[in-house]
């Protein structure tokens, strides 16, 4: 089968649909996943195709959505719970962090929690401070949980399928800005990408750009622009914040000796902090320049369009950071 061009939301839909066909235990639940076809249309047509038993509109109860997913998973189902946006997952934190992430360990493996929580993430839509979070690193902080954040439709399909098939709880975020971005996606229903494997999205020898989700897009744009000036960037798409594939970053860094980390989220205690810390710990001898971080500005996000855009990272900020380390 040839690859097919489709937006990320369709690739996610394809992955979810294939897994529901493949395994009767997989079901979706969340706010507005049924008649409304999903807030981001990822479950479009599911209610008609799979019926109410497997496509559950839930009350506006994020704690119960996550908690019930934990329970259903322990009882042998494979829930894929949708939280409309990751902002509302703050209301489910206890179920995700204290339960989903801990049960296997605390019960010495007697119970497994094969569940996925999908949530749209990101800012840039004038949705403001309480509605615009990109908090993946918060979740990745806790052992016991996997955290996946695809940057392309192809990865979205392969990663979501892996998440659903895995016996561990996975928090899976989907960048709001990327739902409509198209890309080639394998149509095979056995296309599964391994959990915790990063991907080199562009090769280069002068500087390593380490990113995930939308950060990959800004990194690739910056790399394109910098190539015209003779600076060759290698773009490492981490894909997963847990497990974090640092060996791939180290390999690239040994070649470039320079690194800029690009993330959509806030700078303190962040993805960038983690990557930079691990680089200095393990790659000190290869380091030719301090590791730079490009993140959102360290403020709650305001509504006004201009200042929102100013607070966000973009390709130009990546270009500027690269020039500082070269």
């Amino acid at each position, binding site marked *: 089968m040839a690859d097919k061009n489709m937006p990320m939301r369709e690739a996610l839909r394809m992955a979810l649909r294939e897994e529901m066909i493949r395994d009767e235990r997989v079901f979706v639940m969340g*706010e*507005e996943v*049924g*008649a*409304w*076809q999903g807030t981001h249309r990822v479950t479009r047509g599911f209610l008609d195709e799979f019926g109410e038993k497997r496509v559950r*509109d839930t*009350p*506006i*109860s*994020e*704690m*119960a959505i996550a908690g019930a997913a934990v329970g259903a998973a322990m009882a042998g189902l494979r829930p894929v719970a949708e939280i409309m946006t990751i*902002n*509302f997952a*703050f*209301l489910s934190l206890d179920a995700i962090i204290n339960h989903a992430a801990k049960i296997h360990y605390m019960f010495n493996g007697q119970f497994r929690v094969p569940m996925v929580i999908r949530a749209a993430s990101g800012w840039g*839509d*004038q*949705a*403001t*401070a*309480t*509605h615009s979070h990109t908090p993946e690193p918060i979740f990745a902080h806790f052992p016991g949980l996997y955290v996946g954040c695809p940057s392309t439709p192809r990865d979205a399909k392969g990663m979501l399928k892996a998440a659903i098939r895995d016996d561990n709880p996975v928090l899976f975020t989907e960048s709001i800005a990327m739902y409509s971005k198209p890309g080639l996606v394998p149509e095979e229903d056995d296309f599964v990408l391994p959990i915790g494997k990063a991907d080199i999205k562009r090769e280069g020898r002068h500087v390593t750009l380490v990113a995930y989700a939308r950060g990959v897009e800004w990194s690739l744009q910056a790399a394109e622009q910098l190539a015209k000036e003779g600076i060759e960037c290698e773009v490492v798409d981490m894909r997963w914040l847990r497990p974090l594939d640092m060996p791939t970053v180290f390999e690239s860094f040994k070649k470039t000796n320079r690194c800029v980390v690009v993330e959509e989220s806030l700078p303190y205690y962040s993805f960038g902090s983690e990557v930079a810390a691990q680089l200095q710990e393990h790659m000190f001898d290869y380091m030719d320049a301090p590791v730079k971080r490009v993140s959102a*500005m360290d*403020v*709650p996000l*305001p*509504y*006004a*369009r*201009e*200042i929102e855009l*100013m*607070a966000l990272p973009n390709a130009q900020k990546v270009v500027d950071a690269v020039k500082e380390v070269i």
Partner: protein
Amino acid sequence: MATKIFARPSARLKAEHLLEMFWLMLLSRRVDERAWALHRQGKIAFHISGMGHEGAQVGAAFAINRGVDYVHPYYRDLALVLALGITPTDFMMSLFGKKDEYSSKARQMPSHFGSKKLNIVSGSSPVATQVPQAAGLAFAIKYKQQAGLVNPDDSTQPRLALTCLGEGSTSQGEWHEGMNWAGVHQLPFICLVENNLYAISVPQEGQMAVSNVADRAAAYGVKGIWVDGNDVLAVYDAVYEAAQRAYRGEGPTLVEAKTYRVVPHSSDDDDRSYRSREEVEEWKKKDPILRFEKYLMDEGILTPERLDEYETRARAEVDRAQHAAEAAPYPAETDALDEVYAD
């Protein structure tokens, strides 16, 4: 058990008050309609509307000490906050995200109403989070009164906290915890549930297994009442009783106003996927503004001439508000950095 109320404090409202209530409902509708138009024209990013809820909101506003008692509203409460003292220009400034926007200097999303001056507390986007906070506001009122920090009869001070939300949002844990808190501490607290039958596409049965949100109040030791939310005076009566109870130190009340949103959930929604046009048309016939208009005309309080005058005035106010907001400057980039912490 939820009960309907029979006492009619609204019978004591003077004609000028009734007309002011009507004017605010009408003004809110016209401001709201303009916001939809601005969204269609691509001038604003988003709009979430209160159309259909004006009766419930203005009825509730007039029953409390407006602009003094604490109000922790939700995104549909345009008519409520206009009745508390927010102006159409304030609202337009927030829609356009202009520098001198009243609530937050264009940091907060529109329809997240907030004004320290009017004791309106700005909510966050996750639903129902205002409920425990409103319980906290009420807790502070009772605390200060008991500690002798304020005189319980001083009507220049907030003497109750009113919070509002939709029926769907009562599925949220924070609602239950906030209600329980208000009940346990018997606080001067009113929860106004604006039950419009849907939470985006999900009908009430998808949110709860009871037919009245008000029935749940008993479980928290809170008095529960439901009323026809499209009858502004019925809502006034219910909230008035609740407010008097709160002022007398007799504890919290939940008032469920049964109403309908006659427009899509927000500018991002197409409601044709989950409800029939016939249903919407049926409810439009029960419009709270039309209903109040008819009542006031029948009572000889409103005349066709005065109605025309109101319409003209509303259009002029909305035009003025829009122009003022369009002409106002945007915030400077550096404005984003202020106010993260108190100095």
